[in-house]
């Protein structure tokens, strides 16, 4: 009997203790939540007033922009590498080469006979090859811009190929040198007079030259060069690459100064 009474007392005590403990926990939780709320408000207020949030947001934006920029740069570089890889390798049978064919550095130029900047760049490239002591060879490829120089640039490109066919590599370069020397550029060349005149001056058989010009047999070759120029990223003339022996390619757009081309040649020479 007393055991049952004792048990009831103990049970009631336990319930009381548990209830009190629960009440205490609830009070503490409420106090903690209020404290957390106050701390949060204070921290946010402090951060707001000190400008830390603004700075953090700014830093986040800056990091995002930087990431985007780096990705864009990488994309651009991959594209450039792809374009450079599209450049047709130099072959002695196919290409017009000036200088030592075994030279470690190569200047590949896509050029238009009616472009005044190509005329200017022709002298720059010639001077560099002459001064390079066999370290630089110059490859000339056709890039007539029909949109700018309709009817003439392409015919002149074909004429230079005819010169090469009849007189060999030397005749090609004689033709190019003399053409740029003689003509005013910008589609003002009187091709009916100038082309036979140059052919005669450089010692080509004039009738063979004329029939070659009319045959259209080099049209395809010129078209292939134009296609190569565009595939490698060319958007205007002169469009060039300075290529090291190891194959590193530096693209160069326009008739840039002698100093620039020389520095690029020296840089490419170091890459061998």
């Amino acid at each position, binding site marked *: 009997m007393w055991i049952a009474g004792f048990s009831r007392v103990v049970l009631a005590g336990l319930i009381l203790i548990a209830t009190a403990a629960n009440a205490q926990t609830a009070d503490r939780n409420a106090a903690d939540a209020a404290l957390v709320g106050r701390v949060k408000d204070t921290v946010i207020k402090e951060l707001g007033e000190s400008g830390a949030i603004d700075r953090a947001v700014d830093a986040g934006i800056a990091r995002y922009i930087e990431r985007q920029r780096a990705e864009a740069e990488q994309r651009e570089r991959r594209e450039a590498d792809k374009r450079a890889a599209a450049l047709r390798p130099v072959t002695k049978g196919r290409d017009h080469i000036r200088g030592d064919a075994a030279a470690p550095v190569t200047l590949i130029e896509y050029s238009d006979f009616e472009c005044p900047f190509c005329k200017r760049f022709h002298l720059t490239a010639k001077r560099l090859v002459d001064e390079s002591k066999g370290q630089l060879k110059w490859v000339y490829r056709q890039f007539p811009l029909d949109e700018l120089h309709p009817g003439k640039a392409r015919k002149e490109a074909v004429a230079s190929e005819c010169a090469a066919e009849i007189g060999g590599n030397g005749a090609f370069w004689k033709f190019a040198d003399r053409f740029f020397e003689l003509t005013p550029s910008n589609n003002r060349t009187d091709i009916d007079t100038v082309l036979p005149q140059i052919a005669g001056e450089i010692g080509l058989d004039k009738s063979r030259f004329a029939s070659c010009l009319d045959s259209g047999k080099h049209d395809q070759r010129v078209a292939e060069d134009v296609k190569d120029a565009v595939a490698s990223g060319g958007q205007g003339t002169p469009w060039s690459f300075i290529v090291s022996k190891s194959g590193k390619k530096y693209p160069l*757009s326009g008739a840039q100064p002698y100093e*620039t081309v020389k*520095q690029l040649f020296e840089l490419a020479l170091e890459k061998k």
Partner: protein
Amino acid sequence: MNLRIAFGQVFAHPSYAILAGLLAILAFLLAVWFPNFGLIGEVFAESTTPLSTALGIALSLLGGIATNFSLLSAGYTIAIAILFGLTTAMIVFVVKRRRIAAVGQSIAIGSGAAASGVLGIGCAACGSLILGVVLPFLGAAGALAALPLQGEEFGILSVVLLFVSLLLTSRGIAQSIACPLVGAPTADTANSV
């Protein structure tokens, strides 16, 4: 007259003179380096290329203004850079004083001038930019040959537009300091009170 007053107002503050100078230099660098951004990126990104070499190449490319531009295109490229610097600094001056409405037209014309300038500078060398990007997009590549200056007209147009924009901005600045506030008491009305 407006131009002189506005110049006096704006460039009396050295910060605006510096801003105009920096913007002009930036525009010039962009114009001359534009065809060779790829090359510049290449030489600077290459870890084996000494910084001095990369800088030397970038600086030497500035000589392109003499070799890769005609006399006309070099002239308008420099003029565009200077006018762009001046106009933008003056627009910033006005905007900072919260009088954007006064230069709204100038900003619109200036934007047109910038677009035309890009085309003009793109036409400086044989075909660059114009040939490769803009004209095929517009379907008008052949039209370039029909222009008497083969696209350099865009550069000249840009100079004219920038100059108009500069004049309008100047007028906005000069008139804002010359005109009395509407409804404000004049000397007569003030005396009569």
